[in-house]
């Protein structure tokens, strides 16, 4: 299957959407670049967000060295034309990289602009919340290149003490207690702080701060090249690794004139949906655990284990499948295995339906989930919710229908439906996910049926990536819409110049404080869990310890000594 752009897409954008651009460049798969002056960014944003109700996929900047920074706002216009994505570009000066902030217009850009500001050093002017998001609050501004300036002292003396010793507070303050949930908290396994101010058990204010682990994957892909990048992209997240692989491959295949055999597309869909099944099962288990129901946790994870076993048999690995290649997949699914897997999946589907609907019907579970973490459709749109969180607010968005990745999701070929729910709360999110498990099971079953009947190629050798090409790749990860932006290098055809990843949790985490206010303290972990947050995807901070001057490798004896020292008493 080939992926090509409609011939008149640039004219369409110029005529129907925004006529005043400086330049219009069509890319593959109906992606269009519109170049504007930096001053026009707010005008464009207002037009796109307010009038067209287009979603902002991501806002980011590209460092073009001497030329300056290129500020990108990527909007999704798939409502108007099939697969249309508009990339608004503005070139800002290197010396004074200022441009107007659009976070006032849409909250969707809030975190993205903070990220640009903190990690690239551009200056969006007029941001509503100028505090750091990924760097520590105390971090000097503007960002120095990776090192702490001389004379800088971490000032944690006064605030930290008041924060952590509520019982020594003055009476009037102790009435309202500030509770830090995180960075290490058993309810939320990954590192982040949600400060909740409670009055008794009632949450009166909430704030979220991220930036506790950074692995520099975007930068690493820029150094390793397209082929090796697929494995890095998979390792962004352990649970939705297939979604990241698929989004990355979709993006890189949009860089050149790609062609993918049909069987490979089916295998991609198969794995992405298996991934969704096990991720959602995991989520149901985690929520059961958070509300204190270990049995629910064990039962759903027991089912998940069987999904993992099938995945292991098909790809050879349980977590990072490592089969994503430009122009196909690296490993075929033999016919006998497909048949066998189909039988298992069909049995599994019945068991899932039986068990999960029981779980969703449990009276205590219901009492813990209904009405918790409310999010109306309008709030979801303003905050930029994606995935099951948006769909549970009765907002029908799904990348698999709107802007599908390079896999088989055509409703004419495979029968499936987008699940929405109008509960607008955690219970709605649970129902959406439980039903999506069943839908994914049926997609998987149809894919396996196809694979069991046919044979064919699984891989076509990719062509060389043209210099300076650009592409956007989207995929619906279990947690929501996942966006990759890649700009090819101007000098080397095997290396990307810029890679940007916008993960679903990046968006959903930004609206957690909104859902928390007014809820009970006991519900905080449930609300936080209800977005199925994946901090590994979200965090951006990098801290390099300059004092050691290089990495250390510990031998067995050193490790033993260290642990002995740690446990001496």
């Amino acid at each position, binding site marked *: 299957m080939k992926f090509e752009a409609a011939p008149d897409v640039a004219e369409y954008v110029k005529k129907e959407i925004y006529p005043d651009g400086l330049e219009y460049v069509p890319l593959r798969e109906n992606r269009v670049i519109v170049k504007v002056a930096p001053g026009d960014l707010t005008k464009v944003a207002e037009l796109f967000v307010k009038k067209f109700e287009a979603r902002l996929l991501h806002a980011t900047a590209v460092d073009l060295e001497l030329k300056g920074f290129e500020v990108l706002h990527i909007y999704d216009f798939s409502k108007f034309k099939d697969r249309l994505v508009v990339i608004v570009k503005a070139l800002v000066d290197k010396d004074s990289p200022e441009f107007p902030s659009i976070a006032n217009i849409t909250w969707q850009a809030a975190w993205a602009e903070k990220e640009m500001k903190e990690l690239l050093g551009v200056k969006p002017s007029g941001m509503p919340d100028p505090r750091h998001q990924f760097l520590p609050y105390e971090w000097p501004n503007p960002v120095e290149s990776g090192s702490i300036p001389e004379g800088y002292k971490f000032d944690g003396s006064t605030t930290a003490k008041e924060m952590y010793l509520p*019982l020594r507070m003055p009476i009037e303050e102790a009435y309202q*207690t500030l509770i830090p949930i995180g960075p290490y908290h058993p309810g939320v396994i990954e590192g982040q702080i949600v400060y909740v101010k409670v009055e008794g058990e009632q949450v009166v204010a909430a704030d979220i701060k991220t930036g506790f682990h950074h692995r520099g994957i975007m930068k690493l892909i820029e150094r390793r090249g397209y082929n090796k990048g697929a494995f890095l992209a998979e390792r962004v997240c352990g649970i939705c690794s297939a979604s990241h692989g698929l989004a990355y491959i979709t993006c890189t295949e949009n860089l050149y004139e790609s062609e993918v055999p049909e069987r490979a597309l089916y295998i991609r869909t198969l794995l992405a949906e298996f991934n969704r099944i096990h991720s959602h099962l995991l989520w149901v288990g985690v929520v059961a655990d958070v*509300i*204190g129901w270990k*049995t629910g946790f064990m039962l759903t994870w027991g089912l998940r284990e069987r999904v993992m076993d099938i995945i292991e048999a098909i790809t050879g690995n349980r977590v990072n499948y490592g089969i994503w290649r430009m122009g196909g997949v690296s490993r075929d699914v033999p016919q006998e295995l497909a048949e066998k897997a189909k039988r298992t999946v069909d049995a599994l589907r019945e068991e899932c339906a039986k068990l999960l609907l029981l779980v969703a019907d449990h009276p*205590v*579970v219901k*009492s813990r989930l209904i009405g918790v973490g409310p999010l109306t459709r309008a709030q979801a749109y303003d905050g930029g919710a994606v995935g099951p969180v948006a769909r549970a607010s009765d907002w029908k968005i799904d990348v698999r229908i709107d802007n599908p990745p390079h896999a088989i999701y055509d409703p004419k070929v495979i029968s499936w439906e987008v699940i929405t729910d109008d509960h607008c709360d955690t219970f709605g999110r649970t129902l959406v996910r439980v039903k999506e498990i069943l839908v994914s099971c049926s997609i998987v079953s149809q894919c396996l049926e196809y694979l069991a009947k046919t044979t064919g190629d699984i891989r076509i050798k990719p062509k060389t990536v043209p210099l300076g090409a650009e592409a956007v790749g989207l995929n619906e990860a279990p947690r929501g819409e996942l966006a990759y932006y890649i700009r090819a290098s101007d000098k080397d055809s095997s290396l990307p110049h810029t890679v940007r990843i916008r993960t679903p949790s990046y968006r959903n985490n930004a609206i957690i404080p909104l859902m928390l206010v007014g809820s009970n303290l*006991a519900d905080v*972990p449930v609300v936080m869990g209800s977005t199925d947050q994946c901090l590994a995807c979200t965090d951006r901070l990098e801290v390099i310890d300059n004092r050691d001057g290089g990495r250390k490798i510990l031998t067995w004896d050193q490790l033993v000594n260290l642990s002995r020292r740690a446990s001496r008493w």
Partner: protein
Amino acid sequence: MGSASKLEQEGEQMVDLIFTVISLIVIVPLALFLGVIYSYLLRKLSARFQWRVGPMLRMYGDLKPLLGTTRLLQPLYDILKLYGKETIVPDVSRRRLFVYSPYLSLFFAVAAIFFIPFPGMPLLSGVPYSLIIASYLLIASILFTILGPVASGSPWAAIGARREVELFLVSELGFVLSLFAVAIARQSLVIWEISSGGQSLYLALLTVTAGALMFVAMLGKLHIKPFDMPEAEAEIVAGPYTEYSGKLLGTYYLTKVFLLYGLVALFISLFLPPIATDVLWLPLYIVAAVALVFLLTSVQVLNPRYRIRNAINWYLKVAIPLGVLNFIIALAIWLVV
């Protein structure tokens, strides 16, 4: 009455005293052992409910040389391990209260089991008002699981202790109501007299209703789900025990083991007389205890945790009317029968 018979009587009293002292010494390790077995059962049964293996009763053949024949005493090993760990006392805590609370809690729990009979061992359950003494000692033990954490200065412990107080108030109400329903029906405040009393149809009815109430109160006291919000891990880290470590935490866990034994023993001696009196009833006593632990486990595995508000509402809606009903039945038994 001759002097011989007086001597004989004194001799008998002497023998009784010696027997009581010996049994008091014996009951502590015995209670520990039984409490550990009950905890083991709780863990093993909930593991099997959850499709897990749990602590092994009979070790796999090839693991025997490494891990021993059985892990029956696993809960005890866990506590002993804590005794070998470093104990950290937070700087901001009120040190004396923080350190002594676990030991006081343990002391009161152990003191409480002296007043609850075991088959063949009346212990101190024959003293006047032993029912009230035992229930007060149990309350004191729980009180010190609240006081210590409050002194620790951690917000988690503060919230956990607050929840514990709220839960304690409502569950205690049910507990006391069920105790006194039995006391009124049997016209006695001495546990030994209650547990050695006979059975009748009306008393059996009271056993069902007051027993159910006692069972519900036990759920709150032992933090069985859905009433484990004081130590709700996902919400408030470890609740009251957040700042505790090492020996102090081990002492709290030990207290819990004794409490589990004590409450199960109290339940059997009050509601299933005369099982807890004669040594011949011992097999039946064990069966009853295991059945009770099984019931506790199935409640534990089948329910998520309530919010504290839901829990209080539930107690007020279910436990208090049930308690009043018990009271009426008990009064009726007292007045009519």
